[in-house]
């Protein structure tokens, strides 16, 4: 019965690779011990302790720092601050007969501090109350944030498209240009927005333009690398077909490469846009415009009810953008 095939083959040489062996278990154990040092450095142990304390204190055992923090925020955050109240004497060119829409005048008391005599006095003044005044202010700031994200994305595309072409191996004019643009793009990528924004605020002053440029600089590094990789990975066949008609590199790019990379690029630009808006909300913390400036100001004076309004508006905006961009994407493809 022995055929030649069975004699020459030995099944022992072809054992299936075993995933769990003693050696692997030892390696995992050592890795676990080493990682525990790193976990201690990053206070993961503290998080575990505090979180379990919080859980215990919910069921009535002991006190918890975590819960205290949450309680302090929640107690002040609700109800949300929607209206805006301003003393009338602080308003320039106030016209009693021509109030803004839906607003009314209320009289109330205010504590005044006299620094010369170091005394407090209670004075009665009139206030202008705008029922949705603060919400409107936040909405305007949010719109500014969206505009920052938009222009950041537009400038990002303008930078990254040419750089992406120069940084793709098959369309770069020279090997040196390729290396240089690749390095340049990773340099852009390695600059965190907040730090760029800090420097740009020094250069351009407080305001949204610093934020816009910071966003554009960081994300152009990401998008440029993505464009370059997509162009490199485009199928070579159509490119050969167009170039063998005698057309130049630009036309090959336009007709054989762009149609192929278009859907992926649209998806990526959309991601960059969403991400830019999310990042723009925090850029205000270093003074680079947008809703973050308002957020930081209110946070520092413990106006958590204002903060809660801002957070709600940011949350709703991000969800809304997500829905819109999903719809737009389906149409674009």
């Amino acid at each position: 019965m022995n055929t030649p095939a069975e004699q020459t083959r030995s099944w022992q040489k072809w054992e299936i690779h075993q995933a769990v062996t003693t050696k692997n278990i030892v390696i995992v154990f050592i890795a676990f011990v080493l990682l525990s040092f790193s976990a201690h450095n990053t206070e993961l142990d503290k998080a575990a302790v505090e979180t379990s304390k919080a859980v215990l204190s919910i069921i009535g055992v002991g006190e918890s720092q975590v819960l205290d923090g949450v309680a302090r925020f929640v107690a002040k955050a609700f109800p949300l601050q929607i209206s805006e109240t301003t003393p009338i004497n602080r308003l320039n060119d106030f016209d009693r007969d021509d109030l803004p829409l839906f607003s009314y005048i209320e009289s109330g008391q205010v504590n005044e501090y006299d620094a010369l005599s170091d005394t407090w006095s209670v004075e009665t003044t009139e206030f202008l109350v705008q029922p949705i005044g603060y919400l409107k202010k936040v909405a305007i700031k949010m719109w500014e944030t969206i505009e920052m994200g938009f222009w950041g994305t537009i400038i990002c595309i303008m930078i990254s498209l040419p750089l992406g072409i120069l940084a793709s191996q098959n369309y770069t004019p020279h090997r040196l240009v390729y290396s240089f643009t690749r390095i340049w793009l990773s340099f852009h990528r390695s600059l965190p927005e907040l730090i760029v924004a800090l420097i740009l605020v020094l250069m351009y002053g407080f305001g949204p333009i610093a934020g816009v440029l910071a966003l554009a600089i960081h994300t152009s590094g990401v998008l440029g690398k993505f464009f370059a990789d997509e162009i490199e990975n485009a199928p070579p066949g159509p490119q050969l077909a167009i170039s063998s008609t005698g057309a130049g590199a630009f036309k090959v790019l336009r007709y054989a490469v762009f149609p192929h990379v278009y859907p992926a690029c649209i998806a990526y630009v959309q991601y960059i846009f969403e991400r830019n808006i999310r990042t723009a909300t925090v850029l205000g913390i270093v003074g680079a415009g947008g809703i973050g400036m308002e957020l930081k100001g209110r946070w520092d004076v413990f106006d958590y009810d204002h903060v809660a309004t801002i957070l709600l508006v940011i949350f709703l905006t991000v969800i809304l953008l997500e829905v819109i961009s999903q719809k737009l994407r389906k149409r674009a493809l």
Partner: protein
Amino acid sequence: MLKFELVSRIYDDGTKAVSNVSLHIKAGEFCVLLGPSGAGKSTLMNMVNGVVEPSSGRVMLGDLVLNKRNKKTIQQRIGMIHQQLHLIPRLSVLHNVLAGILPNVGLFRSLIKSFTKVEQRSAHQLLDEVGLEEKHLLRRASELSGGQQQRVAIARAFISNPEVVIADEPVASLDPAMSRSVLKSLKTAARKHGVTVICTLHQLDYALEFADRIIALRAGEIFFDGHPDELDESTQSELYALAQPKSVKLEKVAA
């Protein structure tokens, strides 16, 4: 009009794809290159438009010797139908055809995909000649069937008013009825525009049916060159034998 003078091509790994081939193809001829896989058909064809460069010898189109400097000008005088077609899947049929005249379109105009009325009309006409129905014109190339895509590729090769059209296995992936109809439209288009066609095929029957001239290759050398009628019985059976895949296992069993 198209001349090969003692052309050889040796690839980097030492494979001798084509050795000392001399050919003179006259204007308006419908030439079919026959031969088994690896006989050098594709290499010989790709040397016509400079995709492959000859190791020695020279290729001439009219009075022009093909070299690196005039590669782009020569490519504009040659239409190419690739084996895998290489249509652009996401572009419409019309755009795919119009992509064939890109060298004559200005940079800005090609950037915004704007083509003149004349150019569009000639694309319509060509697609009509190769037998693509009107309803497909604005569909994406990827939505078409294999035979329809093949017709689009033929139209793209012809739109630049080329002197020579080279077709690499134009019917390799089609069923016999469709193959015949595609070859027929290729031949009519060539007749109408007075274009020289060089076409590689696997099937001897189609070659006998359509070719003005058959050039058979074996291991990089020509072993038959002439009109289909000149093919005698022995050469024909030899060609058939070459087209058959060798079945090693069967021979062993028989032994």
